């Protein structure tokens, strides 16, 4: 381990150390500030023969060029893992903050991970039940998938996030849920929101099977770059070494991207769209692609990143680049929220790319068809509702009116769901059939006759 007192400049999250030798790219640096016991951590971003640029994971406030010492550890930033992490709460740096005992790690793992060999992957084909009808039936979440929630400021995505964390299960045949775990990382959320999540997990008992990392808005911005990687390293350990089905919830990714922008700005890099760095796509992929299912491996990693779209704009770089990497998206609709529908999931704009591999195959036989029918009928109902606004209800025929009534009921009873209500997939499907019964049977073109016979409630 080498130590230098030659800090040459400090600018934002960057520290430049001169006169170094033998420093490796990406290695962990401990910066010791006079009068402080614990070192502040950073990593090497750029190294020349005698000069190293260090990106800090902690704020640089109070550091000085004189007397500050930089210690190059020769290692990458690592996190200690063990199954004892379950049920524990950590800060964004990975230190326990729940007054529990210190963790005795089984081993230490590099938090940046490594890309999964595409050959080693296995195509995901089983589902996770969230207990929320608008997700489970319409846009099924698949084990090994990465499916973000796109929301906006002031929308209740956090409630949905908490509900999923409480209710999610792998719905195994035996009803045994010991193989299921949740890793939750908050990135720059305000105290109240982070506290709400923690409280909600604790109260429901879901904390026992969860590992929680809390980086709040008050915590250092640059710490956020390391927090999701710690969470994913823990998730990889639990999934691929301990055989658990892990659901990783990361939020808010917009805050993460802003931290990235801050570092890029400090390095005076040529900015891309809206000042975000040109490599943001690649950087985000090193987070989102850490999900999946492997050949010959019991466990899986499923990711639900959450992000708020500035001004509800889907083309903003953060949702845009996220959407290009993830396998679909859940969209939270302001329009539905204003109507009083909660959780206001925009089922039409949402998409689960992998749902086709499970609907009706791993789930009840009628799933794919009911979903198609609900989509089609809801779309017709919404169109008719628009038409009624322009031309007046009197110009619509009975079938159109039935569709309007259906789509209203669909929003009120199917999409709307109290946050304490946990519906099994079967209950959700039956609810769908119950609503479809409002329509004339001739309008049900997407479901086969034998399914109608079997599942449609008789009047």
């Amino acid at each position, binding site marked *: 381990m080498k130590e230098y007192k030659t800090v040459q400049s400090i600018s934002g999250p960057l520290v430049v150390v001169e006169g170094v030798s033998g420093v490796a790219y990406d290695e962990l640096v401990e910066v010791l500030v006079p009068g402080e016991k614990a070192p502040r951590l950073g990593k090497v971003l750029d190294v020349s023969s005698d000069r190293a640029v260090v990106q800090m994971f902690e704020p640089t406030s109070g550091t000085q060029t004189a007397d500050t010492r930089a210690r190059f550890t020769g290692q990458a930033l690592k996190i200690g893992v063990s199954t004892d992490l379950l049920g524990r709460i950590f800060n964004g740096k990975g230190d326990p903050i729940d007054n529990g005992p210190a963790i005795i790690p089984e081993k230490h793992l590099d938090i940046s991970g490594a890309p999964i060999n595409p050959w080693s992957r296995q*195509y995901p084909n089983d589902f996770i039940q969230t207990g929320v009808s608008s997700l489970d039936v319409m846009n099924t979440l698949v084990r090994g998938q990465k499916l973000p929630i796109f929301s906006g400021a002031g929308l209740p995505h956090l409630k949905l996030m908490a509900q999923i964390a409480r209710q999610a299960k792998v719905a195994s045949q035996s009803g045994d849920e010991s193989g299921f775990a949740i890793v939750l990382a908050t990135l720059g959320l305000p105290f109240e929101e982070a506290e709400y999540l923690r409280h909600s997990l604790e109260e429901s008992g879901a904390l026992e099977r969860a590992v929680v990392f809390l980086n709040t808005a008050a915590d250092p911005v640059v710490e956020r770059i390391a927090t999701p990687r710690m969470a994913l390293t823990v998730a990889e350990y639990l999934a691929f070494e301990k055989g658990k089905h892990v659901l990783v919830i990361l939020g808010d990714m917009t805050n993460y991207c802003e931290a990235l922008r801050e570092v890029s700005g400090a390095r005076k890099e040529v900015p891309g769209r809206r000042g975000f760095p040109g490599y943001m*796509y690649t950087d985000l992929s090193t987070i989102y692609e850490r999900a999946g299912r492997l050949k010959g491996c019991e466990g899986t990693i499923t990711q639900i990143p959450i992000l708020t779209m500035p001004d509800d704009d889907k083309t903003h770089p953060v949702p845009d680049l996220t959407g290009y990497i993830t396998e679909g998206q859940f969209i939270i609709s302001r329009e539905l929220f204003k109507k009083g529908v909660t959780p206001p999931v925009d089922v039409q704009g949402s998409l689960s790319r992998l749902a086709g591999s499970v609907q009706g195959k791993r789930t009840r036989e009628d799933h794919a068809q009911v979903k198609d029918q609900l989509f089609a009928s809801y779309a017709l109902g919404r169109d008719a509702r628009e038409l009624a606004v322009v031309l007046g209800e009197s110009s619509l025929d009975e079938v159109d009116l039935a569709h309007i009534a259906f789509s209203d009921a669909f929003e009120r009873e199917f999409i709307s769901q109290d946050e304490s209500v946990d519906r099994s997939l079967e209950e959700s499907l039956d609810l769908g059939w119950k609503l479809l019964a409002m329509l004339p049977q001739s309008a049900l073109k997407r479901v086969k006759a034998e399914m109608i016979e079997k599942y449609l409630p008789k009047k």
Partner: protein
Amino acid sequence: MDTNVQIGTIVRVTGPLVKASGMHNAKMYELVKVSSEKLLGEIVELNGDIASIQVYEDTAGVRPGDIVERTGETMSAELGPGLLESFYDGVQRPLKVIQEKSDSYFIARGIEAPGLDRERKWDFVSRAKEGDVVSGGDVLGVVQETTLIEHRVMVPPYVSGRVGKISSGSFTVLDIVAEIVSEDGQTHKISLMQRWPIRRPRPSQGKQFPKTPLVTGMRILDTLFPVAKGGAAAIPGAFGTGKSVTQQSLAKYCDAQVIVYIGCGERGNEMTEAVTEFPELIDPNSGEPLMKRTILIANTSNMPVAAREASVYTGITIAEYYRDMGYSVALMADSTSRWAEAMREMSGRLEEMPGEEGYPAYLASRTAEFYERAGVVTCLGADKRSGALTVVGAVSPAGGDLSEPVSQATLRVTKVFWGLDASLAYKKHFPSINWLTSYSLYTDNFGEYWANKIAEDFSLLRTLAMDLLQQEAKLLEIVRLVGQEALSNSEKLVLEVSRMLREDFLFQNAFDPGDAYTSPQKQYGILKSILTIYLSGKDVVSSEDFDFLQLRSLSCVKDVSTLKTFSGDDLDGQYDEYQKRAVKELSGLAH
């Protein structure tokens, strides 16, 4: 100056870019091995004795002072039997071998894995004889590579002379199968494998004008916006509009003989899907598993960014090699925007002056060079065979806005534009290719081909369909303003028939095995049947007192949605019968 120095010293490391000194003899694009871990890299800039190297593997742990070993070779692809059915990373390392050698689920570093299997033996049957005078491109012999493809072992470009020795038998890719003695008495040893630098197009005897369409089985593409065998097409679209689904459909069903599919900076699960699915899916043109004609290259988004930049060149070099054998090859690159972003990232680290949106100034020229490698060519070789290379590039414009540089650079050099439309995707209309904005500049080239192969009136019907769809867009505007009642019966008929075109012809479900592929013959059948309703109904509905609801209640109108389900031997007969019925029912309305 000592010219034998093969070792340089690293002076700077920043991400995937490494600078090394002591490299005054190095060549541009020379392959190097970085640090004691022997990470693969390529020289991208020379300045005095300092070389800038882009490294194809993660550089964590590399430090100034470490060595850089030169290899003297430029970044080349290995070409020979065994390419088909392979699954490579961006620099042609078989991903399966990487897993076996590293015994890990993750991509390990410094693993050497040659593109072609050194152990496997191939049955080589010679075609040339001792004493034959041959030159570049001439076929020396063949190897049955898969049940579908006969691999032609060719004299490498720029080699010529008299065949000294040649023998049939069982050989590995490195064994010498023939010797060619050139005029100056030099002996060239020929094995089943040759190398070619990936950034240099393989030579041919010249390009030809493309005259044949690439049949894809997708109705909107074949009928409305066809691409030529040897043409170049672009599919730009925001996320969720179906770029990858369309690309995969093309890879599955198009009638090229060899497919090269490049997953460039895209999702891992998508490539896994292809690898799992292709060996099981049957090629509708040959009846064999699709994998037998396919080469997959996967450099997913989180794999090293420099290798992503190289992946499109690796892919197109392999594609050109099969083209040179005289095959029709199709290459899908998904997505070229990620390739451009990789260029931008490397350019930024090289501290080059940025052009538009931070992309390097050479973005447009590199893009043009890439698409120009497509084409129908007269291959090297005395038999003057032709080969074709079709390139289909997906583009992922930021925010779905086509004014960004990558889309614009691509549109300038491709002749076919399949514009994916987010609002169609929202309505779950797939493939969500917008029929109003998309175009193909090849349609005029194919008039003769369609007339001979399918039917005389094919081009006519195509034009009529396009015209109706254009009219529909205008009429819908009016309906939105003042309601359907304001329309005349003729206009209502246009709307009705356009709806049929959209819902029962253009809409196609890529996930329904029965619907995913439609033969050109059948496409013509459906199209003509729908348009028959328009042509026969046109006069009938134009009378003042005609009740439009009558038309909607006709059985032929109700049966339109069954048209695409027709199957069996006598397709023409079935469509004929439907069309006769339609004419009869419609003329019945007149009385």
